[in-house]
């Protein structure tokens, strides 16, 4: 029910929305909760476990009850706090966790079974029979649990992330935050002022009070306008600082489009990473409910929330209000209500010294001990010295005092301290380096004290930053002392809720203590207290008090619970913005990408790169046809393959050779200019890191290559060796992978192809196998390497990348004229398997040079990275699995990578396993499947037979063990 003339809503701008299928009208400035309350809607949700009817408890982001789903289909947003969601035209909100309807929810039967559903009951049952857990009990529990539902469809909306930097971050734009921001801004500091609300003011928006002679909200607005006009201030509204991280990094969530009708390009939210030299925490406080029997009915709210709805939104939450409290805020609430013309049926104050009033009946030294009303509050029972009395009421405003919102100060493991005078935890100094708490979050509850602490916090920050402050006067404001007598629970018949959201009652906490879950962490985990979406903001302190009571300890002795990020829940889509689809990782495309795609080649991921799988010819319907053809093409004429993705590192300097001798197992300092050497790099633990080639371009310059997958790792490793291990060596490293487009020209016709392309034909004498040097292609300076990964006479030609596309097209055309063409990864793989060349399928991080038969390449004449550790007893010898070739010799010809090897006739079980298969391919050259694998003592077993067994794919094939080089073992083709 709206109260005329009250509130900060814009009554000239009506807003139409729907809740639970019913059309409603509110005003601009309303939240879903305020608009519904104005319409007399009290029932907004169902609780988690007992499916109790629930209405709004609070007026902020800590709301535990009024959780709804906003939107439909893929846009459906579950678990939205009705107290935060601003209404907009067309907004559709739905109740959740209720079936078939909010009013008649079948699972509210759980409430009747509550005696059997006490804390931790599920640990004690559902154990028999065993198979029933997955089949029956768990599915039933899962379906009953949960709150809202995800749509199951991809989130279609936009989200973004951004960075911001400042001298001072002010968290919260209430009186303390505003004052801190102003003080810092006037001193010239670079300030960011964040508040989760839609406007500045904090509690001033909810209270009927004056600051500097004007309404508090107007004062806040004027000050905000002034700050906004300053070039060194950034005011971020609807922005919740959610987490504190190291060295002044803060995570913050800005609601960008959630309060507006859907617009595709407008982000719903932005996740900010704010880097602040200092921060002031001015996050206010949260009022706590009191645990008395049946304190959870719709219509029961915190007193502060009642005032907020009244003063900020002009809404009377009911017609007959009872106020219950242990402090002066209860009286303030009653006064505000009466002033607005709302009937206050009683003020129940647990303090005996409570002052009487003319305007409403005051029951001093009395408590609430029960409530009535199925879907909403109808009456309350109070207990006074005279006995129990029932009072009709549709609204109960309760206040148990305030808990400072110190959550962020706990994000770095700091523990707050207990203050008896306000019966609350407050932050200790410096729980987070550089974060200064001020105002209510620091236990200063009067407006005056907030202003003063805000200014003081900013002054401290300025002084630490070496900035000079200007004199900023304090505004006039109320300065009432806190008067409160702790009251945590009222004993009586019936359940008294602590954690409304997780349905944890005072009895549950007592039961936990009874079962010796006395540590606060045990209690929390056993009862689930504080683990609901509000993270215990409304209930942790009261639960702690109940536990303290049950265990006969004081609250500080009992402990504190810790708070962890995020302060309020953050959508995965916001923190993961941009990663959906292809955005997860950069895409690297070679210069031949376009030409390759034009030819219909399917592209596959190779690390971040894309490479062609194969190049289908017309008429080919299966990849194997293309692959076989491409292999034959390379063996018989010439093939072209883009090899630009291999890492290329320029190594220069007087000590380049010595440096490479250290990082490669073999000697690179003796390579002559104009020659290339194959090399093996080990990790320091003696296993193979990578392989590649080192081309000595000139006396002082090498160009080394890495595999595509290991390029980044190798570069970091070389930098480490150069900077960390041997800073004495004069060597300079530069990645040139991207500078050069490089293509393999492989096959018997490769020289013919190049001769027609290069500005001068190749002199065979000058270009033996493993030669390298500069050449010119149509006037462009290029590099040529006579190296081969196919076992054929082959070259790799490199040109500056700008010419890559052009050269690739040209090479392919020339190759086709010679009966060849481009080949992809499938053919490349078969070609290398035929030759027994290794890839990371073989050098998978657990193999040594010994295992792959390259221990001869570990030079005895010098030290190298990994040499000593490779010599450990466990890393060599006949027990090791060694690289072998395998070919099928029995009935089955099938081979699969990932199969294991056994001696024929043995059971294929672990203890009999002799090795495994790493690479397989069909060799059109040899007309058979071939495989590479590792076999225990394999080099000594050539000629033996082993059983290849793949349980997963039901393959069992008898194989002959052979040398891994299947084709042209003496290398005549490659050298010829």
């Amino acid at each position, binding site marked *: 029910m709206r109260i005329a003339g009250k509130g900060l809503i814009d009554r000239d701008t009506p807003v139409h929305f729907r809740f639970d299928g019913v059309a409603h009208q509110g005003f601009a400035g309303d939240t879903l909760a305020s608009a519904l309350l104005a319409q007399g809607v009290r029932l907004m949700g169902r609780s988690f476990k007992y499916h109790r009817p629930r209405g709004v408890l609070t007026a902020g982001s800590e709301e535990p009850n009024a959780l709804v789903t906003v939107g439909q289909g893929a846009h459906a947003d579950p678990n939205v706090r009705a107290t935060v969601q601003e209404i907009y035209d067309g907004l559709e909100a739905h109740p959740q966790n209720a079936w078939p309807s909010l009013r008649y929810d079948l699972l509210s039967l759980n409430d009747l079974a509550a005696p059997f559903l006490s804390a931790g009951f599920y640990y004690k049952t559902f154990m028999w029979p065993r198979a029933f857990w997955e089949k029956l009990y768990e599915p039933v529990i899962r379906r009953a649990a949960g709150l809202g539902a995800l749509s199951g469809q991809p989130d279609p909306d936009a989200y973004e992330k951004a960075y911001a930097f400042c001298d001072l971050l002010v968290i919260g734009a209430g009186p303390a935050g505003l004052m801190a921001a102003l003080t810092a801004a006037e001193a010239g500091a670079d300030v960011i002022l964040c508040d989760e609300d839609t406007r500045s003011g904090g509690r001033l928006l909810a209270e009927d009070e004056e600051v500097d002679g004007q309404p508090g909200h107007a004062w806040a607005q004027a000050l905000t306008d002034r700050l906004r006009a300053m070039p060194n201030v950034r005011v971020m509204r609807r922005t919740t600082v959610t987490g504190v991280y190291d060295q002044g*990094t803060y995570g913050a969530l800005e609601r960008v489009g959630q309060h507006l009708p859907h617009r595709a390009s407008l982000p719903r939210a932005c996740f900010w990473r704010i880097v602040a030299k200092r921060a002031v925490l001015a996050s206010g406080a949260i009022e706590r409910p009191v645990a008395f029997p049946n304190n959870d009915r719709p219509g029961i709210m915190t007193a502060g929330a009642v005032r907020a709805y009244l003063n900020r939104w002009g809404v009377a939450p009911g017609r007959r209000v009872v106020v219950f409290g242990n402090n002066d805020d209860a009286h303030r609430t009653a006064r505000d209500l009466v002033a607005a013309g709302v009937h206050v049926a009683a003020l129940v104050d647990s303090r005996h010294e409570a002052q009487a009033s003319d305007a409403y009946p005051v029951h001093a030294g009395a408590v609430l001990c029960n409530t009535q009303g199925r879907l909403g509050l109808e009456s309350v029972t109070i207990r006074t010295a005279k006995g129990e009395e029932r009072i009709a009421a549709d609204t109960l405003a309760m206040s148990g005092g305030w808990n400072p919102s110190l959550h962020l100060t706990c994000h770095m493991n700091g523990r707050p301290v207990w203050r008896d005078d306000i019966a609350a935890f407050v932050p200790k100094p410096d729980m987070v380096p550089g974060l200064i708490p001020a105002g209510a979050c620091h236990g200063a509850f009067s407006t005056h004290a907030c202003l003063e602490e805000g200014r003081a916090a900013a002054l401290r920050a300025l002084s630490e930053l070496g900035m000079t402050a200007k004199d900023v006067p304090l505004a006039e404001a109320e300065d009432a002392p806190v008067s409160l007598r702790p009251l945590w629970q009222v004993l009586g018949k019936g359940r008294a809720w602590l954690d409304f959201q997780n349905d944890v009652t005072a009895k549950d906490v007592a039961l936990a203590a009874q079962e010796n879950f006395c540590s606060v962490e045990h209690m929390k985990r056993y009862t689930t207290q504080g683990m609901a979406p509000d993270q215990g903001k409304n209930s942790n302190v009261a639960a702690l008090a109940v536990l303290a009571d049950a265990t006969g300890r004081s609250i500080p002795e009992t402990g504190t619970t810790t708070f962890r990020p995020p302060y309020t829940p953050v959508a995965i889509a916001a923190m993961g913005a941009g990663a959906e689809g292809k955005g997860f990782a950069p895409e690297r495309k070679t210069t031949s990408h376009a030409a390759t795609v034009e030819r219909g080649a399917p592209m596959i991921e190779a690390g971040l790169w894309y490479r062609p799988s194969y190049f289908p010819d017309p008429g080919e319907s299966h990849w194997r046809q293309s692959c076989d053809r491409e292999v034959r093409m390379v063996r018989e004429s010439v093939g072209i393959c883009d090899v630009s993705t291999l890492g290329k590192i320029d190594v220069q300097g007087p000590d380049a050779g010595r440096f490479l001798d250290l990082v490669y197992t073999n000697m690179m300092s003796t390579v002559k200019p104009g020659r290339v050497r194959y090399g093996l790099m080990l990790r*320091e633990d003696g296993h193979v890191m990578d392989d590649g080639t080192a081309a000595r371009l000139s006396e002082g310059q090498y160009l080394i290559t890495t595999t595509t997958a290991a390029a980044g790792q190798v570069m970091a490793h070389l*930098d480490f060796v150069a*900077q960390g291990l041997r800073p004495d060596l004069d060597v300079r490293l530069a990645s040139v992978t991207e500078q050069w487009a490089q293509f393999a020209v492989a096959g018997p016709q490769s020289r013919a192809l190049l001769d027609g392309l290069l500005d001068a034909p190749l002199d065979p004498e000058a270009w033996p196998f493993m030669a390298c040097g500069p050449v010119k292609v149509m006037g462009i300076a290029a590099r040529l390497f006579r190296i081969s990964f196919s076992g054929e006479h082959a070259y790799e030609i490199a040109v500056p990348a700008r010419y890559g596309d052009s050269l690739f097209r040209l090479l392919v055309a020339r190759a086709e004229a010679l009966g060849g063409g481009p080949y992809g990864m499938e053919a490349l793989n078969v070609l290398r398997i035929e030759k027994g060349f290794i890839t990371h399928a073989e050098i998978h991080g657990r193999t040594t040079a010994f295992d792959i038969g390259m221990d001869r390449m570990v030079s005895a004449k010098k030290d190298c990275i990994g040499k*000593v*550790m490779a010599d450990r007893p466990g890393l060599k010898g006949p027990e090791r699995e060694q690289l072998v070739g395998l070919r099928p010799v029995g009935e089955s010809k099938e081979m699969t990578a990932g199969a294991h090897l056994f001696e024929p006739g043995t059971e294929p079980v672990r203890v009999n396993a002799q090795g495994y298969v790493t690479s397989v391919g069909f060799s059109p050259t040899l007309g058979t499947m071939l495989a590479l694998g590792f076999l225990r003592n394999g080099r000594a077993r050539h000629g033996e037979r082993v059983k290849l067994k793949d349980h997963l794919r039901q393959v069992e094939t008898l194989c002959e063990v052979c040398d891994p080089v299947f084709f042209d073992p003496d290398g005549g083709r490659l050298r010829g």
Partner: protein
Amino acid sequence: MRIRCPICGDRDLREFTYKGDAVALNRPGPEAAAQAWDDYLHLRRNPAGATRELWYHGGGCGAWIVVTRDTVTHEILGAVLAEEAEA
């Protein structure tokens, strides 16, 4: 977390990769005893407190740096280039 690179200044953690204890700079000679190598590669003091460790500013200038950092509070007490670090 932010790390003050001696070359680039204060930068976000995401620009760096971590290698481990700065003991990795003290590579034993090829003749060193097996124990020395085990110490070098495997065994760690692993303190709950200040430790010297190697980071690579691969997302920035490419420097390897030795950072002194508290493993309990994550406070960073200093950073120098690995090439200038005392072994």
